[in-house]
C-alpha cells in the first residue's frame, strides 16, 4: 500500500530540497539573526553615543549576572519571586479549579458566580494594586494577592469550559457501565476536562509571572526580581536590570517548556487530546 495518498501527491509534493536541509537552514538563520542582533547592540553600546550606564556592553551584563549568581543575590531574588508566584498560583488553583467544576455541574452555582466573574475579569490586576497597598501595606501579602487575582480567572474559566464540554457520550457510556457519581467525577470528568484545565493552568501561570514582576516593583520591600529591577533604576544600574530580565525570561521559559510541557506529555499528549490553540 503506497504511503503517499493521492491527495498528498497532488498538493504537497515538492521537488528536490529535503526537509532536513530546510531545517538546518532555519537553524543557521536563527543563529545568524541572534548574533547579528547581539552585534548591533554591542556596537551601539560601545559607540559612546549613550552613557555607558544606560547601555552596558554584553560582557558587562554577563559579568554582573555571574557575580550576582555567585554571591547568591540573584538566587535570593529569584527565590522570593518564585515563592510569591507559586503561593499565589497555588491559591488560584485551589479556588479556580473546584469553583470551575462546581459552576459547570450546578446551574445554581453558575448563575451566582458567572456575573461576578464576568464583571471582575476585565479589571486588570495591576489596577487593584493601590487598593491592596492601602489595605495590606507593602510586602508579601499584597504581592501574593495580586498574583492570586491575576491567575484565578484563566484557571476558573478554562476549568469551567472544560467540564462543560466533556463529551456526554463518555458520561453515558460510563453510566451504562455502572459508574456512580463519585467515580464518574474522578474517572471521567476530570480526565475528560484535563486539556482545558491544563491550558488554564498554563495561562494562569503566565499571568502570575507577569503580575508578580509588576507587583514587586511597587509592593515589595527588599527582595524579588521585579523589585531589584525597579530599585536599580535609582542607581542607573542597567546592567543589573538586564541581567535580571534575562533571569526572568529564563525562568519563564523553563516553566513553560519543562514543567507544563512535561505535564502535557504525561497526560493529554499521551492520550492524544492536545488542543492546538496556545495562548
Amino acid at each position, binding site marked *: 500500500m*503506497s504511503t*503517499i*495518498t*493521492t491527495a498528498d*501527491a*497532488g*498538493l504537497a509534493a515538492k521537488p*528536490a*530540497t529535503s*526537509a532536513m536541509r530546510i531545517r538546518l537552514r532555519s537553524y543557521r538563520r536563527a543563529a545568524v539573526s541572534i548574533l547579528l542582533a547581539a552585534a548591533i547592540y554591542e556596537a551601539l553600546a560601545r559607540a559612546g553615543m549613550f552613557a555607558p550606564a544606560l547601555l552596558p556592553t554584553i560582557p558587562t551584563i554577563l559579568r554582573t549576572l555571574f557575580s550576582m549568581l555567585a554571591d547568591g543575590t540573584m538566587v535570593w531574588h529569584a527565590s522570593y519571586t518564585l515563592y510569591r508566584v507559586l503561593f499565589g498560583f497555588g491559591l488560584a488553583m485551589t479556588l479556580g479549579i473546584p469553583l470551575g467544576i462546581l459552576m459547570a455541574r450546578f446551574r445554581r452555582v453558575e448563575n451566582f458566580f458567572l456575573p461576578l466573574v464576568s464583571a471582575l475579569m476585565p479589571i486588570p490586576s495591576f489596577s487593584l494594586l493601590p487598593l491592596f497597598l492601602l489595605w495590606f501595606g507593602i510586602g508579601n501579602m499584597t504581592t501574593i494577592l495580586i498574583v492570586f487575582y491575576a491567575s484565578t480567572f484563566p484557571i476558573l474559566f478554562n476549568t469551567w469550559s472544560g467540564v462543560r464540554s466533556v463529551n456526554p457520550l463518555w458520561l453515558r457510556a460510563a453510566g451504562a457501565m455502572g459508574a456512580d457519581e463519585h467515580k464518574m467525577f474522578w474517572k471521567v470528568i476530570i480526565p475528560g476536562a484535563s486539556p482545558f484545565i491544563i491550558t488554564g493552568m498554563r495561562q494562569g501561570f503566565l499571568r502570575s509571572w507577569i503580575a508578580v514582576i509588576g507587583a514587586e516593583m511597587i509592593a515589595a520591600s527588599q527582595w524579588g526580581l521585579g523589585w531589584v529591577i525597579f530599585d536599580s533604576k535609582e542607581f542607573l544600574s542597567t546592567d543589573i536590570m538586564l541581567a535580571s530580565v534575562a533571569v526572568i525570561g529564563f525562568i519563564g521559559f523553563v516553566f513553560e517548556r519543562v514543567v507544563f510541557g512535561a505535564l502535557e506529555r504525561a497526560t493529554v499528549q499521551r492520550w492524544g487530546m492536545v488542543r492546538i490553540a496556545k495562548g
Partner: protein
Amino acid sequence: MPQIEVKDVSLVYDTPSGQVQGVKDANFTMEASEFLCLVGPSGCGKSTLLNIIAGFLAPTAGEILIGGKAISGHGLDRGVVFQDFAQLFPWRTALGNVAFGLEMKGVPKQERDEIAMQQLRLVKLERFANSYPHHLSGGMQQRVAIARALAYNPAVLLMDEPFAALDALTRDDMQRLLADVWRETRKTIIYVTHNVAEAVYLADRVVVMTPHPGTVKTEVPIALKRPRDPLSHEFLDYQKQLLQDLGEGVSKAA
C-alpha cells in the same frame, strides 16, 4: 492538431523514505471538446498528473502542449475544480466567487456580474447568488466551484475527483448536471476519478493508470450514446472491461 498533448511526462519527488516516482512516461493526446477521464486506484499518479497539467507541479521530464504550445506554470487557459468544497473563498458570496477569475482578467463589474449570473444559472444556483459558501450544502458548493472555473472561459477544465466527497444520491445528480453542462459548453474536460462507473457515465475516452510507478496502462474509448443508461448491458460491459484493466493494477497496489 490535437488540443492537448501529454508527452513522456515524468515526476520524481522526495519523501522522508527516499525518492518516489510519482508519474512515469505518461503519454496521451486529446482533441478539443473531448471528455477524458483518468481512472486508477490510489497512488497511481492521476492527481499528480492533473496537477502537472494544471501547472502547479513541474514535471521532472517530458512536456505538455496545449494548442501546440508548451505550458509553464498555471494559467487562465486551464480551469481547476478540486475535491475539497473548501476551495471556495468563504469571504465572498457565490456570485463573488464565480466572478473572481473575471475580476483578475479586468472585466468591468457590471459585465462580470452578468457573466457570473449566467454561469450560476447553468449550474442551477441563480437563487443563491448572494449566499455565502457556508450556507450552502456540499453539492451546491461544488456547483459554484464548477461555475467559477468556467466563468472566465478557459480552454480546458481540469477536475480532480470533484464529487468524491458527496453522498451517492447527490453524486448522481452532479454527474448528470456535469454531463448537461459539458453538452452545452463543449469544453475540453480532463476528469480524475477512482470510480469506474462515474468514468463510464461521463467520458468519451478513459485513460487507465496503474501505480508503482504511476503509468498510463491503456486507453478505452466509450462508444455509448448520451444520455447514458448506467443499468444497460453495454454500460456494464464497459465497466467490466475497465475493472479488468485495473485489476492487475489494484492487486499490485494492495
